[in-house]
């Protein structure tokens, strides 16, 4: 938050088949469909999120991540950050208000890792889904599937991690909460946060730029993660691994795939981070345990199944 960047705001994901994608994201994950636009995009969110949407699906002939956006505190901050990004060496693209429905103007830039990111200050506030603004109940009835509460973070694969870290810490004000170092001290994973969360966005070194590893959604409890696993079996959804625990962040997790091959995570728990706290470090000789705390082994799919 040091530079006025608040939190993850939205991701735009490419899917091969919108009908099947909606069965997955709405019926299985339990996201709420909030709107559609004339380009065929569908706008979704988790029920606890107060802004109108956090996931935008777009049908395309290649799955993956179009961009991830962060909300900033106000329009003046957006202006200042535009200048800071240009000074850092980023090409900054300006996208007018309304290009995404009910979202204010956005600026878009590419990180050295090859991923496109956006910043914006304004989005329509619709409140938590199904709850009154005043005297809200504990949760709304009528939620589907896993009842995912919010889009939480994304893990991205790409190269140029040192320059990407400088961009996110020096320009955007993220803190480095957790990292993985090789014996020479090279950072092969960096988990970055704007908040008390262990990660709002994370990067793992990979020779190809701009790849998506997963988009993650938050659940409240380990029982909810187990129940999500049950639903994955009941619906014959493609599973990756879990339920298990990560060493990094210590979150309790399950990985699975959407019908276009984009990896999803639902998770609960995990460590907290304040900006004054030292970065948590794992070493590459313990990488298996860092990723999958119980198996203590990386599977090839974790490193290579990307969109």
């Amino acid at each position, binding site marked *: 938050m040091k530079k006025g960047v608040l939190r993850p705001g939205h991701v*735009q994901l*490419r899917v*091969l*088949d919108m009908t099947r994608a909606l069965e997955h994201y709405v019926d299985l994950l339990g996201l709420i469909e909030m709107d559609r636009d004339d*380009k065929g995009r569908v706008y979704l969110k988790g029920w606890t999120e107060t802004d109108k949407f956090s996931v935008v699906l*777009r049908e*395309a*002939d*290649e*799955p*993956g991540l*179009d*961009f991830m956006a962060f909300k900033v505190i106000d329009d003046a901050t957006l202006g200042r950050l535009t200048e800071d990004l240009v000074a850092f060496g980023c*090409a900054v*693209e*300006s*996208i*007018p208000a309304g*290009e995404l429905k009910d979202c204010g103007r956005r600026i878009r830039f590419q990180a050295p890792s090859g991923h*496109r990111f956006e910043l914006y200050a304004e989005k329509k506030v619709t409140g938590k889904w199904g709850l009154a603004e005043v005297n809200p109940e504990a949760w709304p009835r009528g939620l589907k599937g896993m009842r995912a509460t919010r889009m939480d973070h994304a893990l991205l694969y790409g190269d140029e991690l040192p320059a990407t870290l400088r961009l996110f810490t020096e320009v955007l004000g993220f803190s480095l909460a957790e990292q993985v170092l090789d014996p020479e001290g090279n950072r092969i994973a960096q988990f970055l946060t704007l908040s008390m969360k262990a990660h709002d966005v994370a990067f793992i070194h990979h020779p*190809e730029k*701009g790849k998506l590893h997963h988009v993650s959604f938050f659940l409240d409890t380990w029982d909810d993660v187990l129940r999500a696993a049950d639903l994955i079996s009941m619906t014959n959804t*493609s599973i990756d691994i879990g339920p298990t625990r990560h060493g990094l962040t210590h979150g309790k997790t399950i990985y699975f*795939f*959407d*019908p*276009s*091959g*984009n*990896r999803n995570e639902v998770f609960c728990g995990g460590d907290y981070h304040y900006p004054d706290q030292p970065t948590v470090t794992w070493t590459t000789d313990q990488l298996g345990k860092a990723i999958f705390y119980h198996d203590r082994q990386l599977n*090839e*799919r974790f490193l*290579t*199944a*990307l*969109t």
Partner: protein
Amino acid sequence: MGQRYRITETASGASFFCEEGQSVLQAMESQHLGCVKVGCRGGGCGLCRVQVHSGRYECGRMSIRHINAQARELGQALACRLLPHSDLAIEFLGLADSQEPAPAPVSPVMTQQQRQEVSK
């Protein structure tokens, strides 16, 4: 029970049955074989790319990054999207280098440069 076809993976010599309407990868996994690598099972990641040497088949939607039109023409497919209509001989290829450059623009917004060119 529907039609069943024999799928043979030529590199390993492994063979297994696949039912009409079932994907080759799904059939392989259900018979506890590993002659083709398993990734996302959704046509997205490219790990299960195979060459079909013989037989009739159709394919579901696959990422153009891993199977472009030319590769499709040459009989390549992702096993998770490969639906046989006869016995098939396939060969595991695995993840290739990208076949396509970066995907189409994410939204119809002009870059600064394009805007300047238009205004000239």
